[in-house]
């Protein structure tokens, strides 16, 4: 399987399993999806479905208790799985791909000035001098809407929204083609949230950056999404174009997720999904959502195939 050149990111059968005292947790279990340049894909799912592990697996930020890590990750035509850790660090991280971690506002270093932190990736990855890196950092600050004189402040002197902007500036300073955002706005107020999404939309159109946005909040995810990937129990169950997805999700789980969103406009009463997602230590055979699915039938005890409908994919027997 060679990578089709039209994709910026192409993930094939990505797996990440962890070793724990209770057994092997199959956090990411055979994930496939593709992303075109200057597209944003949103990965949505409940907590514990493996969203954050997926981000870690793509960026190869692995903890020590990894049992199995496999599959293929193509970035343009570079197959990153074949690289050694050092090659990966030098060729991929920050250069091609960067991450805004979960609770980014609290992940800034408390004892470094924010300007130095934004400049650091430039110095490390491109070997530029400090003055030059600081110039670049100032440019980035202007770009994300942080006043330039904040460059000498510490993280605790900034508000939550400003800290989030600094974290975004840091991920963009080396101008990578792909930025991964892990729950970028979950701890922020609505107005700040709207501001951050305005900023991300602007960056997407001005810098032609691609995004992988990981979130459980479907309503705000629609602010950035070109495509939506729904994750359940370590697997992607549906990938669809945003316009199709938000109008008519195909997988029963996606439909349930959409119905659980309280809407400000419109009249449908929100509903909730009964039951709990399965344990990832011994996931059920067949369709993993079958136990909670309102539309289950006999076939669901067998592993469902991934059905391709145009550019979209859905892993469900109903669409075979």
């Amino acid at each position, binding site marked *: 399987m060679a990578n089709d050149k039209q994709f910026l990111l192409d993930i094939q059968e990505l797996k990440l399993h962890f070793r724990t005292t209770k057994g092997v947790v199959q956090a990411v279990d055979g994930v496939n999806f593709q992303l075109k340049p200057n597209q*944003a894909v949103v990965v949505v799912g*409940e*907590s*514990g479905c493996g969203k954050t592990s997926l981000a870690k697996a793509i960026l190869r930020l692995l903890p020590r208790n990894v049992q199995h890590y496999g599959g293929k990750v193509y970035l343009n035509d570079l197959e990153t799985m074949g690289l050694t850790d050092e090659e990966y660090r030098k060729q991929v991280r920050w250069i091609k791909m960067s991450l805004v971690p979960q609770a980014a506002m609290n992940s800034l270093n408390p004892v470094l000035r924010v300007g130095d932190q934004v400049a650091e990736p430039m110095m490390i990855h491109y070997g530029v001098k400090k003055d030059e890196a600081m110039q670049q950092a100032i440019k980035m600050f202007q770009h994300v809407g942080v006043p330039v004189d904040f460059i000498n402040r510490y993280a605790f002197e900034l*508000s*939550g*929204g400003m800290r989030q902007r600094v974290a975004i500036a840091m991920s963009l300073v080396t101008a990578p083609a792909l930025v991964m955002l892990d729950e970028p706005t979950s701890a922020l*107020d*609505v*107005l*700040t*949230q*709207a*501001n951050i*999404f*305005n900023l991300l*939309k*602007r960056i997407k159109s001005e810098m032609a950056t691609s995004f992988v946005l990981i979130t*459980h*909040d*479907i*309503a*705000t*995810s*629609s*602010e*950035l*999404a*070109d495509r939506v990937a729904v994750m359940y129990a370590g697997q992607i169950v549906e990938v669809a174009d*945003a*316009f199709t*997805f*938000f*109008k008519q999700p195909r997988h029963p789980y996606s439909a*349930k*997720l*959409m119905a*659980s*969103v*309280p*809407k*400000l*406009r*419109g009249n449908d*009463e*929100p*509903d*909730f*999904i009964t039951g*709990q997602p399965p344990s990832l230590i011994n996931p059920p055979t067949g369709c993993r959502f079958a136990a909670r699915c309102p539309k289950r039938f006999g076939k669901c005890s067998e592993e469902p195939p991934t059905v391709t409908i145009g550019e979209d994919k859905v892993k469900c027997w109903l669409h075979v």
Partner: protein
Amino acid sequence: MTNKDKTKAMKTSSPAQSEQKSSVFSDILLSIKDLHVWFELRKWGFRHAGYVRAVDGITFDLSNSETIAIVGESGCGKTSLMRTVLLLNRPTKGTVAFDGRVINDLKAEDLKNYRSHVGYVQQDPYGAMPPFMSIQAILEEPLKINGVKDPVERFNRVKKALEEVKMSPAEEFMAKFPHMLSGGQQQRVVIARAMIMEPRLLIADEPVSMLDASVRVEILKLLRGLQKKHNLGVIYITHDLSTVRYFSEQIFVMYAGQVIEKGNVKQVLQATSHPYTFALLEATSDPDARNATVQKEVPPGEPPSLVNPPKGCRFHPRCPKMIDGVCNVEMPPDFEPEPGHFVKCWLLK
């Protein structure tokens, strides 16, 4: 002493309800009048250096079986208001009356007695529970403090409370520790703890903001069910306008220590009148792919400092409809465009 006796014992002074303006609800549970909560700032630990005006003149009544949603950004004074109702800090000016009795200065036994009538659901369920206590011990604690001595009665009440929040089999959960439960289950235990003394008022401080989107509605429906069943007055504090319309009767929008718009759900969401409420509504997304193609209008800047709030309307520095010479000079009073809908904005003059 049972709960009802305690309630009777509390009604010592004459009800202060008579002087309140007529309300559609006759049974007022909580009445707050011109409440100010200011925190003193000190320089070098002793020199007075001003006040943080966390709550600055709030008046409202809450009836039995009514939910008031208080909506606002962080730092607008929602939490200070709630802490004052719980008497975790005292009002600087104004009164808080529960069941017709002013409770500003309750002490010792009376305070304990009052708090047994008020349930509190915290924002972060895991942080709200001691990690080394079992669920049973956590739920028994309020009963012990309030003098339920019989262990069998305590066990039965804990079991009943857990069943009421749909945690069954209750016995199985009682032996567990908080870290063994999922986020939604932890929040149910916190709700069970708030409900175990059979309170009459429930304060829910962002009860679902830390939870996964798929269980939020479930928890809110549970709270709504408990409210209907027990005739509770509920104060629901949130920053998420999209959940408010399904789970409350009244909406209060707070900005910089003041309620700038209040009314029933329909009035605030459909006949929105304050520019700040507009901004909040505009910023709240519904799942729709078209969102990705447009930039949202967000007022510039950040909420003002509560030490030196701006002169005139507190929103005027960020307001797109600011009238120079009016909004930045005098504080707008409460205008009433329709009965029961109050808006603090000069545009409605």
